[in-house]
C-alpha cells in the first residue's frame, strides 16, 4: 500500500493515522507538523462521525488528483475520542444511512479505485454490524 504522502498513517496490518502531539500542551493535530515541538503519535482506529457532507461534484483539478470518472463521496469529520477530529472520506455506506454519531473505523482506501497502482488516502468505513 503506497500512501499519498509519507507520515500520514502507520505501515501496520491495521494502519492507524499519525497525529502530532504538542510536546508542551498535549494538543493533538493531524497531520503531524514537521516542527520538533510535535511528537508523532498513532491515533485510535475507532471513532464516531462528528459531522459530514456529500461531495456531489468533481473538485477542480489541480489540485484534485482523483479519477476523471467522478463518483460522489461522503466527506466525514471523525472524532477520535480524547484525541482529535479528523477530516477524511467515509466509504462503504449509503448516503441516506449516514448519521452523526455513527461508529466508524480507519480504513485507508485507493484514491482511484479503478487503478491497481493507485495511491492510498486516509479514509474511514462504518464500524459495528453494518461493516
Amino acid at each position: 500500500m503506497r500512501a499519498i504522502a509519507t507520515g500520514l498513517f502507520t505501515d501496520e496490518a491495521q494502519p492507524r493515522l499519525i497525529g502530532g502531539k504538542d510536546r508542551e500542551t498535549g494538543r493533538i493535530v493531524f497531520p503531524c507538523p514537521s516542527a520538533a515541538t510535535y511528537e508523532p503519535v498513532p491515533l485510535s482506529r475507532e471513532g464516531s462521525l462528528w459531522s459530514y457532507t456529500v461531495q456531489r461534484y468533481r473538485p477542480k483539478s489541480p489540485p484534485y488528483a482523483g479519477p476523471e470518472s467522478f463518483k460522489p463521496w461522503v466527506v466525514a469529520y471523525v472524532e477520535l475520542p480524547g484525541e482529535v477530529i479528523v477530516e477524511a472520506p467515509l466509504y462503504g455506506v449509503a448516503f441516506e444511512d449516514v448519521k452523526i454519531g455513527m461508529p466508524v473505523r480507519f480504513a485507508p482506501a485507493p484514491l482511484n479505485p479503478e487503478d491497481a497502482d493507485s495511491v492510498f488516502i486516509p479514509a474511514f468505513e462504518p464500524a459495528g454490524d453494518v461493516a
Partner: protein
Amino acid sequence: MSGDVCIVGIGIHPFGRTDGLSGVDQGVFAVRQALADAGVEWPQVQFAYGSSDAAGNPDTMVDRLGLTGMQFINVRNGCAAGGSALFSAQMAIKSGEFELGLAVGFDKHPRGAFNALPSEYNLPDWYGEMGQMVTTQFFAAKIMRYMSMFGISQESLGRVAEKAFRNAVHAPHAWRRQPVALEDILAAPLVSDPYTKYMFCSPAEGGVALILASEKKARELGKPLIRLKAATMRTRPPSSFEVFAPSVDVVADDTRPRGTASRIASADAFRLAGIGPGDIDVAQLQDTEAGAEIMHMAENGFCADGEQEKWLAEGHTEIGGALPVNTDGGCLACGEPIGASGLRQVFENVVQLRGDGAGRQVPNSPKTAYSHVYGAPGVSAVTILER
C-alpha cells in the same frame, strides 16, 4: 480627532457577470459614483485602502482616476478584505492624519467554485489532491452539525434562500433578481448535503467604493451624517471549526457551539458602539450559504442557537420584520466578489439608513445598521453604522 468617522459617499458597480469590464474597471466605476455622491473631486481624496483577491492590485486605479500622488494601500485578507480596508481607512482618519479617504473593493472570479490551492493556506499538497480543498465541504459540514445540535430544518435553509431572491428583486445592484419558490429551492439538486444549488452563493464580479470623512469634514460637505460607530476585524479563537481544516480539536463539552472569529468581532463591535444586538434595526450577515445566515444570526448575538427556526417561520428577518437581514439579497443573490463583498454590505446599510431603499426599504426610518463577514481561515469583520 473628535467626533465619528462618517460615510459621505457610496458607489457600486452591479454585481454578477460583466463581460468586457475588468475588476479594476468595476472598481473605478464605483469610485466615480461615490465621488459624485459625496460631491468631492478625486484630488481631494487624501488616501485609499483597496481590496481585491483575484483581480489585480487596487492601487493601479490611480492611473484612471488621476496621478495625484495620494497614499494608496492594497489589502488582501480573504473574505474579510473589504472589512479590513474599511477598518484601516477608518483608523487613518481617527488618528488625525487624514480627513477624507476612500475604501474600495472589487473582484472578478472565474466561473464555478473557488479554486484554492493548498500552498496558499499552508496546507500539504495531498490535502488538495484527495479533493478536500473545497470550501463548500466545510460550510455544509458546519451546518449539518448545527442542524443536528439545534433542530434546524432544511426547510429553514430554503426560507433563507427564498428571502434572498425575493429581496434582490428590488436591489438594482444584485445579480439574481428573480424570485424562486421555496419548493423549487428544496427540490433542486444537492451540491453538498444538505445544501441544494440555490443555497450556495457563487463567486462573481463587482465593485464598491465608500468615501469616508472626519465628522468635521462631513459637516463641511453638508452630507447627512452616517456614523461608523464600530469597525472590527478579528481572527479565530482556539478549537474553532474552520474552512480547510484537516483536523479540529476535541473539546470537553461539545454540546455548545464553538467560539468563532465572528463572535469575537461582533462582541467587540457592540462594545465599541456602546449598544447591543437588540438595538440594531437592519443587518447584513455573511450568507455565502443559506445556513451561514442562520448560524451568524446567533454568532452575532441576535438570537439564541435554535431560535432561528421560529424566527424564519414567523418572518422576523423579512424586510418588514423585527430584524430585517440581508435586505439586498446578500451573497446568495449578489454573488461573492471577495474584495467587494464586505463593502457591499456597508453600501446597502448606508442606502437603508438614508431611506433610499425604495422597494426594499426597511420601514420606520432605521437608525442603526450592522454588517458582518466571515471567511477562511477563520477571519471576520463587523461594522456598526448609526445615523
